[in-house]
């Protein structure tokens, strides 16, 4: 082992570039001295690896290690050693570009390759390094896979697609395409599900077993429906022809790819290589190991500037942890080459601020992490966590095939696309998501204070857990709109077709509180998880639709043990202009009551008081008792201790036509707030109660 120091600027492979006149050998350490620029034109891939490679900083003339057009280079660093800089006003420089001139972001021509291979514990320490790695970007970043293609004829009259003996079973996931226009309202690159299948016809729905989509036109041109790829398939059919496209190559070391399954389920990816590339088919290094949803993707991972890490533990590959303000340009590939399946290692870029990331990150535990203000326009694919932990990231690129896509980020701005992930947006706090979130198991998982103005499409759960979020975009094709732990979700956008819109479950599992404010809702609304024993609106959970059906002033509350609807037809003469129509579900009882309404009256005098509401039944044969339908008043009964007492009405209904007064009398100990509540705690089939919507 020796330490080889540069003697002058020049090419790595030329002896005269180095003190002693001999280029670095395997296991040597390398120092590029300040004032020298060394072109990496050597191939050290056969080495076990170099020891530490140091690029010296300087007040005015820092050293530079660079790659440029006309030559390829392969820098291999052995495990236990790093690529580093040294201190100076200007840090050492690591550059790949077209001409070797610092500051020029012209790409290294694809014909030339720049590889930095890092051993199992090796890293690039960004503390005293300026990094600009500029490379060729393929025009086609991914290919779309398909299984079978069916040319169909659409009927707007029948909402059907026709093909003789199509063989498509119900619940088959498909996508549609056309050489002209698609039958409206179908859209390309969107997953649909076959329903109402017959020998020669079928319909499409937004979700499995969903309502058939109302086709409003037959479309033009050749309309095709295509399915996904069956498991164990190789080669796979693809739509895009990249046989003549630069960047897509089967050359070993430069043919890394990743498949991303767009089935709406947990993330499913494979890291493979391209074996053959044909016009309509790709042979991968291994068959796909699961059924792939239609339109599932093969991402090109290789770039001609590449940082490849053999890490088998988790640490930062490009590490700015001691240089939080350093900024780098990464158009390159950063990839872990040791993991496979669902085993990922290392962090692509960690810490720092304002990095520009327009290349590819793949196979990493965290693609990007622990920094701030990263601008991500590239692709993060097949990582455990795509963009993880940091603040003020701006992601306009694509995150695909990750367990968590855009995850644990504060005040992030997501305007890109996240797809094929278990959680598309995960634990985003106070951020804005204006991009597209689609084909993920969970669209937005456990976010808080986030404004989602983009679309959440094709999710098992559009929202999972989370609190205080707002959706002003569109959500469609969900199996569940939200789960039991989703709290304070405000929906002002469009809720399209989905399986179960309202999932309300019990106290023990959470307390979803959802407000639809002027939202566009589907015509037919299914609920599940309601009508469970001992779960009522004492938990304050439910879905509350304001300006329901986009009718100003209309309201509809879906509560765990019943619905409360504003009714302007059944009203009391002399009473309010509307009533509260209460429809109990089968669980409605003393232990699962409906809190119909609640008023607070301020500064009620400390004197005898009586308050009344009027109620009317419908359909009852056995009337609710005074303990099953009543108004209660909660007032201050001790002016010193502020103790409060609750009293309830005692009147009962005696028919289904009379507006009956329910009155409560009390005397506050001091002028103070009084809270009134109306409760229903009884169910009978096809029975309702109306509450005059005013306190008298």
């Amino acid at each position, binding site marked *: 082992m020796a330490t080889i120091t540069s003697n002058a600027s020049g090419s790595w492979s030329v002896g005269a570039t180095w003190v002693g006149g001999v280029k670095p050998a395997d296991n040597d350490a390398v120092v590029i001295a300040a004032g020298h620029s060394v072109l990496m034109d050597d191939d050290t891939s056969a080495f076990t690896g170099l020891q530490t490679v140091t690029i010296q900083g300087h007040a005015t003339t820092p050293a530079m290690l660079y790659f440029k057009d006309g030559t390829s280079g392969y820098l291999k660093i052995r495990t236990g050693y790093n690529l580093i800089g040294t201190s100076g006003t200007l840090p050492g420089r690591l550059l790949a570009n077209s001409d070797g001139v610092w500051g020029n972001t012209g790409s290294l021509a694809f014909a030339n390759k720049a590889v930095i291979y890092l051993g199992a514990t090796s890293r690039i320490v960004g503390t005293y390094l300026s990094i600009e790695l500029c490379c060729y970007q393929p025009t086609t970043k991914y290919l779309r896979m398909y299984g079978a293609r069916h040319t169909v004829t659409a009927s707007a009259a029948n909402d059907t697609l026709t093909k003789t003996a199509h063989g498509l079973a*119900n*619940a088959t996931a498909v996508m549609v395409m056309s050489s002209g226009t698609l039958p409206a309202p179908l859209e390309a690159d969107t997953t649909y599900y076959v*329903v109402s299948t017959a020998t020669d016809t079928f319909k499409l729905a937004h979700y*499995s*077993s*969903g*309502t058939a989509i109302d086709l409003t036109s037959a479309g033009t041109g050749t309309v095709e429906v295509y399915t996904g790829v069956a498991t164990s398939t190789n080669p796979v059919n693809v739509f895009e022809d990249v046989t003549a496209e630069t960047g897509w190559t089967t050359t070993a070391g430069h043919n890394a790819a990743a498949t991303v399954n767009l089935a709406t389920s947990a993330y499913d990816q494979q890291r493979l290589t391209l074996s053959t590339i044909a016009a309509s088919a790709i042979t991968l290094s291994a068959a796909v190991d699961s059924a792939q949803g239609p339109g599932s993707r093969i991402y090109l991972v290789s770039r001609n500037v590449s940082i490849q890490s053999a890490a088998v533990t988790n640490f930062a590959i490009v590490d700015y942890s001691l240089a939080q303000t350093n900024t780098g340009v990464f158009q390159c590939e950063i990839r872990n080459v040791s993991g496979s399946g669902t085993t990922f290692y290392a962090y692509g870029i960690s810490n720092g601020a304002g990095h520009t990331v327009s290349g590819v990150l793949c196979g990493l535990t965290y693609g990007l992490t622990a920094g701030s203000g990263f601008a991500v326009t590239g692709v993060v694919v097949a990582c455990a966590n795509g963009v993880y932990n940091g603040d003020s990231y701006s992601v306009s690129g694509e995150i695909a095939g990750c367990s968590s896509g855009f995850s644990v980020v504060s005040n992030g701005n997501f305007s890109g696309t996240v797809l094929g992930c278990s959680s598309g947006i995960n634990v985003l706090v106070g951020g804005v998501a204006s991009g597209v979130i689609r084909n993920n198991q969970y669209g937005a998982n456990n976010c808080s204070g986030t404004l989602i103005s983009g679309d959440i499409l094709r999710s098992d759960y559009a929202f999972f857990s989370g609190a205080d979020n707002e959706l002003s975009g569109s959500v469609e094709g969900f199996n569940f709109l939200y789960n039991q732990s989703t709290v304070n979700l405000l929906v002002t956008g469009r809720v399209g077709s989905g*399986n179960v819109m309202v999932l309300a479950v019990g106290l023990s599992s959470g307390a979803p509180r959802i407000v639809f404010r002027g939202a566009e809702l589907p*015509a*037919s*609304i*299914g*609920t*599940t998880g*309601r*009508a469970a024993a001992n779960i009522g609106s004492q938990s304050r959970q439910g879905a509350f639709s304001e300006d*329901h*059906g*986009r*009718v100003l002033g*209309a309201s509809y509350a879906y509560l765990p043990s019943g*619905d409360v*609807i504003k009714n*302007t*037809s059944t009203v009391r003469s002399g009473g309010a202009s509307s009533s509260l129509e209460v*429809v109990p*579900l*089968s669980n409605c009882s003393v232990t699962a009551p409906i809190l119909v309404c609640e008023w607070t009256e301020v500064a009620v005098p400390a004197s005898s008081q009586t308050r009344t509401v009027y109620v009317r039944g419908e359909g009852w044969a056995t009337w609710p008792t005074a303990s099953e339908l009543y108004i209660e008043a909660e007032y201050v009964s001790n002016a010193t201790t502020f103790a409060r007492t609750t009293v309830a009405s005692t009147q009962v209904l005696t028919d289904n036509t009379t507006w009956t007064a329910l009155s409560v009398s009390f005397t506050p100990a001091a002028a103070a707030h009084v809270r009134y509540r109306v409760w229903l705690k009884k169910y009978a*089939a*096809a029975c*309702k109660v109306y509450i005059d919507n005013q306190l008298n």
Partner: protein
Amino acid sequence: MSVATQLVWGHTERPWGYEVRVDYLDGETVHNHVLTWPAEPTPAEIDALVESTRMQLQERSDAEALAEVEAAALAEFEQAIS
């Protein structure tokens, strides 16, 4: 488990459309649906939507039951080979 239409009721004209309530029974689980049309539907239209909704629930119930069976079989298999 067979999904049955338990009760069709609550035919109501609303400002946002015409509403019919349907309760489906899937084992011990009640699915409460509110079906809505832009205007009052014919009895045949109601019957058709009530039944198609029931069929959707049946398909989903069957799929969930199958998934449970497959998961149990997989767990049993994994235990057997471990």
